């Protein structure tokens, strides 16, 4: 079971927080959440992974889809506060090159 918090902060940055496993069951929800933000003009998106207990290749694919749509709209998607399992998956797939983990949600778009 995965819940998603979606909000936009005072700077207009969208913050999506998946809670639970981000896998083949819940990846579609992440794709939808990011697509709705980008379509509404919120092209800078942070996915806060602090409460994502598990990431599989479907969840990773949803992050890539979100990254591409945000960049195509002139923005970006960044990930923050990943758990050890997520960091391991990013490393094993070499995806940490394009989805570099950030230490905080608030600072994800700094630098």
């Amino acid at each position, binding site marked *: *079971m995965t819940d998603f918090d979606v909000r936009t902060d005072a700077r207009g940055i969208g913050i999506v927080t998946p809670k639970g*496993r981000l*896998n*083949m*069951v819940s990846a579609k929800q992440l794709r939808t959440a990011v697509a709705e933000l980008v379509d509404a003009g919120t092209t800078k998106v942070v996915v806060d992974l602090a409460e994502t207990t*598990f990431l*599989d*290749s*479907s969840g*990773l*694919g*949803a992050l*890539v*889809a979100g990254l*591409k749509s945000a960049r195509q709209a002139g923005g970006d998607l960044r990930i923050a506060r990943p758990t*050890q*399992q997520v960091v*391991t*998956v990013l490393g*094993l*797939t*070499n*995806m940490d*090159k*394009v989805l570099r983990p950030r230490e905080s949600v608030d600072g994800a778009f700094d630098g």
Partner: protein
Amino acid sequence: MAEPVRLTLATGVEETAVDQTHDLLQELWEQVPDVGDLDRIRVETAVAEIIGNIVRHTRRLDAPGSDSRRVQVSVWCSPDEVGAEFVDNGLPAAIDLSDVTMPDLDAESGRGLALALAAVDQLDYERSSGRNLWRLSCRRGGA
């Protein structure tokens, strides 16, 4: 731990099998609490990809609502290794693991088996007597 611990579930090939498999592993970790975090992560990452692959592909030509596909998942732990086995009566997987490579960085799919192969020490697939058999294992010793 003197004897290997082995837990098994049998269920329909449905999306719910993914969470059931995670829960089975959780039960294993509770019974064998000295398995290191990295070993748990490696095995669970690969296990999730294999059960996901089975759910996605083994019933791909079935009529909607068909529930004839079944999968048996076993997870086990010995003093030296952690592993899992999957047996299902679905369609053949039609893959050659020696050909599996990690796709480009901008690919939105196709990483599952490459990730599973990268995560554990051993991953094998065979088709035998109308069943798919997947076996994976990981030598213990991670942090």
